């Protein structure tokens, strides 16, 4: 999950500056920056996202349950819940295929935490939403289409 070395170096200055005005200690800032996978969040399609997350292939799995609306009345808030029954689940990722950047979120689930999370994402348009699960260092995927509709009489 390390960001590329040059990103860390480039952002070092910014975070050092923030540290001096007391928002974060330098170590904290650096630790957080390293924990944010810039390369993965900049990908433009699911294939590249999974690659950037360290995978080479993803298997379609029926052991991933996605709870999403078939139709979202507004793309600004689309509830997404993902639960994995795949043994050894380490990470859950939420991808929105047609967003400007594909990866919306990644969750790391230590032992003792249920492999199930619920959150809300933005969708720029009707798209497939993908749940990617990393378990025992293998990648698995499930997908559902969510239609985003227009609303109101002034837009």
């Amino acid at each position, binding site marked *: 999950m390390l960001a590329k070395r040059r990103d860390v170096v480039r952002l070092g200055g910014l975070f050092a500056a923030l540290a001096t005005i007391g928002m974060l200690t330098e170590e904290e800032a650096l630790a957080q920056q390293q*924990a944010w996978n810039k390369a993965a969040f900049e990908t433009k399609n699911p294939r590249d996202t999974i690659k950037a997350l360290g995978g080479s292939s993803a298997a379609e799995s029926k052991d991933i349950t996605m709870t999403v609306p078939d139709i979202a009345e507004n793309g600004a808030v689309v509830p997404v819940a993902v639960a994995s029954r795949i043994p050894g689940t380490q990470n859950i990722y939420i991808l929105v295929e047609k967003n400007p*950047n594909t990866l919306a979120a990644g969750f790391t689930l230590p032992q003792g*935490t249920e492999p199930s*999370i619920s959150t809300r994402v933005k969708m720029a348009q009707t798209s497939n939403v993908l749940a990617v699960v990393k378990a025992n260092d293998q990648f698995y995927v499930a997908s559902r289409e969510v239609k985003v509709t227009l609303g109101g009489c002034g837009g």
Partner: protein
Amino acid sequence: MPDPMRIRANALADGVDVRVLMSHEMETGQRKDGSGNIVPAHFISNVTVSHSGKVVLSAEWGPAISKNPYLQFKFHGGSKGDEVTVTWVDNKGETRTDKAVIG
């Protein structure tokens, strides 16, 4: 200073259910303001939830998480009266930590 979170942590038969609402703009970096200038991205990038000094969930978010984010999950090993701590950090280095007692 960012507004406080709303954290609910409830001990249920099958684990501790944690629900968090965070107050954050989650600016995408794609939106233009009234004068046509791009509003810079501003979003929570990392969330950490811990219990008894142990991390029970960590998350990396991009700007596609909805404004005023919501998060729900469950962990085992917590009991009523324990504290759950949630910390977020955004891409500008702002941060906020709040705690809730498991009910």
